[in-house]
């Protein structure tokens, strides 16, 4: 009885405190946000970085979207955006969308099904290069199952798939899947994009700022609340955070405030609202299995057994980072294996000393020991968030007769080196655009993927990835995903050291911000954001 009363009281309080701000939303004002670096371009489809998604998502709309009122991006919480409804044919190979009518691009031209066709024909590589809406296509792999896009009049479009793929709709719901306009050249989309979204681009000054203003013709009536959003590009993090503390910015860049920095921010701006959340960016160990002696499975296994993930988390994030396998762990992650399964994976066992003893035996078997250590170079991108875990890794590998030397690589050639396999061992961070097995597995572990940096090839895993991708029974699919996670961990495909957790802060006057917990790349439409002043 007491419990029920408490729940009733809490519900009343939540109604009073929670409901009143909803009624008090105010229109107007400019939201000022700091940006961490120069976005390579403004074309979301051509880039793979939050530096582009966060500022430019507000310019576009998708067909469907992860519900912005939900913390977890889930296939069960997808809402219509430029599509009004969708349906599958009986064998789940045709996905048909009825499109919203009366929507206009920012230049006044009408949005039609032709724009949807243009966009996905370009993304799937069905368009000749000179007619494509994009110059480069980092997510072509997402649409390898897309056979055709058919229009039926101006407001209906059908995606024809090669086989059932439940993740297809999920991929359309992410921040990386905006609809582009057929009539806007790719060069324009990279510099001053035109969308249907709540905000229009006024100016994108490289190294300086991105200015967006309210789209007065936005199809969702009453939105957005803000008049404008000003992004100021401030590459130096100390300056960015000082700018936030001094009131020059209303909000920090996504996940810009690490736990050690949070104390400083709070000390100078006690009323700052700061929220920690997983970024779905994992720190992971890359072992190039094409290079000697790492073509020896014993050495790869020894390396993963030497890892003490908790030590990484304690040092890097004061213990806030999450331990997980290939998919972000629950409850924030939708697909990750249950916590109780994790200790069965190499590198996640609770008894580190036992694991390291086993690792030392494996190293001795491979011909290394205290008198004959294995000397290696550990390559990493030359920025702090990469270098710091690499230094800890070097320290931990010493325990098993591996002497590592840090090889910091200039940011701009880091991915080139990885793509060419020009490294022995690397410390890498991998962001996953959508918390979805197809997105993660096909990009990072499928044998033919260009981003399979460790050159991991396992026919059985490829088949399992394809099988889970076509599986319509959610629970059955989850079990398949966990099985794949286990095989990848046992094979030391790309050992996961941890999932980053970091803070985003804003001034208390900024309202209507809801950070989604299983990907930083989604949820930045900002049409519900408003300023209480």
């Amino acid at each position, binding site marked *: 009885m007491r419990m029920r009363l408490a729940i009733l009281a809490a519900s009343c309080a939540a109604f009073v405190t929670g409901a009143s701000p909803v009624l008090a939303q105010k229109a107007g004002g400019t939201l000022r946000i700091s940006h961490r670096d120069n976005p390579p371009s403004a074309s979301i489809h051509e880039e793979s970085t939050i530096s582009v998604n966060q500022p430019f998502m507000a310019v576009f709309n998708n067909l469907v979207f992860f519900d912005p009122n939900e913390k977890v991006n889930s296939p069960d919480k997808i809402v219509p955006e430029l599509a009004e409804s969708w349906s599958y044919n009986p064998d789940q190979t045709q996905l048909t969308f009825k499109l919203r009518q009366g929507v206009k691009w920012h230049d006044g031209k009408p949005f039609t099904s032709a724009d949807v066709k243009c966009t996905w024909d370009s993304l799937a590589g069905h368009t000749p290069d000179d007619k494509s809406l994009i110059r480069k296509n980092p997510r072509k792999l997402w649409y390898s199952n897309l056979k055709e896009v058919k229009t039926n009049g101006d407001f209906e479009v059908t995606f024809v798939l090669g086989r059932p793929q439940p993740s297809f709709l999920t991929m359309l719901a992410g921040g990386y899947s905006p609809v582009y306009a057929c009539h806007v050249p790719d060069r324009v989309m990279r510099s001053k994009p035109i969308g249907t979204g709540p905000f229009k681009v006024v100016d994108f000054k490289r190294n300086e700022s991105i200015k967006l203003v309210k789209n007065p013709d936005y199809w969702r009536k009453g939105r957005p609340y803000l008049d404008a959003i000003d992004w100021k590009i401030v590459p130096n993090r100390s300056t960015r955070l000082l700018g936030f503390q001094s009131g020059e910015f209303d909000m920090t860049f996504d996940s810009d405030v690490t736990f050690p920095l949070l104390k400083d921010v709070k000390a*100078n701006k006690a009323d700052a609202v700061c929220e920690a959340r997983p970024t779905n960016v994992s720190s992971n160990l890359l072992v190039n299995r094409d290079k000697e002696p790492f073509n020896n499975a014993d050495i790869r296994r020894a390396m993963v057994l030497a890892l003490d993930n908790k030590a990484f988390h304690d040092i890097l994030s004061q213990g806030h980072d999450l331990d997980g396998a290939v998919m972000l762990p629950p409850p924030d992650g939708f697909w990750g294996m249950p916590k109780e399964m994790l200790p069965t994976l190499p590198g996640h066992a609770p008894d580190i000393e036992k694991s390291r003893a086993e690792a030392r035996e494996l190293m001795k078997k491979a011909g290394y020991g205290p008198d004959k250590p294995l000397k290696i170079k550990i390559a990493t991108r030359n920025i702090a968030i990469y270098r710091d875990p690499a230094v800890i890794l070097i320290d931990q590998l010493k325990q098993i007769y591996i002497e590592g030397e840090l090889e910091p690589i200039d940011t701009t050639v880091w991915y*080139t080196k990885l793509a060419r396999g020009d490294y022995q061992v690397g410390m890498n961070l991998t962001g996953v655009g959508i918390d979805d097995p197809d997105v993660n597995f096909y990009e990072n572990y499928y044998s033919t993927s260009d981003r399979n940096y460790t050159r991991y090839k396992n026919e059985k895993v490829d088949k399992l990835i394809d099988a889970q991708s076509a599986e319509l029974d959610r629970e059955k699919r989850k079990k398949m995903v966990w099985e794949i996670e286990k095989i990848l961990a046992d094979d030391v495909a790309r050992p996961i050291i941890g999932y980053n957790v970091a803070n985003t802060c804003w001034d208390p006057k900024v309202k209507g911000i809801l950070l989604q917990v299983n990907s930083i790349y989604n949820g930045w439409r900002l049409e519900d954001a408003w300023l209480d002043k």
Partner: protein
Amino acid sequence: MGSYLVRRFLLMVLTLFGMSVLIFVMLRLVPGNIADILVDASGADPKEKARIAHELGIDRPIAEQYVSWIGGLSRGDLGFAYVSERPAIEEIAPRIPISAKLAGMAIFFAVLLGVPFGVISAVKQNSSLDYFLRVISLSGLSLPSFWLGLLVLMASVQWFGTIPIYDSNPHGFLQDVAMLSLPAAVVGFRSSALIMRLTRSSMLEVLRQDYVRTARSKGASNASVNYDHALRNALLPVVTIIGIEAAFLVGGLIVTETVFNIPGVARFLVEAILWRDYPIVQNLVMLIAFVVVMVNFLVDMAYMALDPRIKFGD
């Protein structure tokens, strides 16, 4: 004098030509190009590299690329920036006045503090004031600009609750000057320390000369001896160092433009190098080389004005 100027001009042209070849070749020796970076960083299909390289013209023979660049430069066409895909001149031109103002103010600040304090320090040798100024100048030489810049920003937040964020549309001259004065002071502090130390040692040397003693024995006032007789002769090495500092200010500007978030030439150059944005880097480095060559020329001319014994001629 006329033939000297002609020779000097030809030498400048030769120097700039040498620089252009050097920059061009060195840039292409650095591993990776824009096509690699664009494609690999985004994880796109490596096959797309060739298409982008062709589109940007970086797959042409290097000599052809050089001739095309120099030909364009001579016509005032700086080419297209690879990353922004806009004419390079449109990217570079708005940033030049920002960095020029910052550099000018920094040098002004450095000379304004460095020369008078150097003179005072020399005239009051071994006094408490001299020791104090020497400590200040030593600190100026030893404090890294980025650290000093951050310290200034932190103090600004702590004491005034604000920081000088750059505004590309300042409300009038005064706001423009106020906005740039802190960063300029940070850049100029190191130069002022150097100028102060050099002025002091140069002054001390001159003050020991016979003609200074003669001037004093003739009853000239301290001010007249120090400023009319000694300072002018002590200034020659100081002018040299001011010239060198002005030419090498770009290094200091990179740090300061980053810390104070000023969208000037120096920060843009670093960004362009990281992206291997050849048209931007080549043209900016040429611009810097031109400034250095011109500053050297002006310093040489200043020698003549300061010391009539120096003649440049046949």
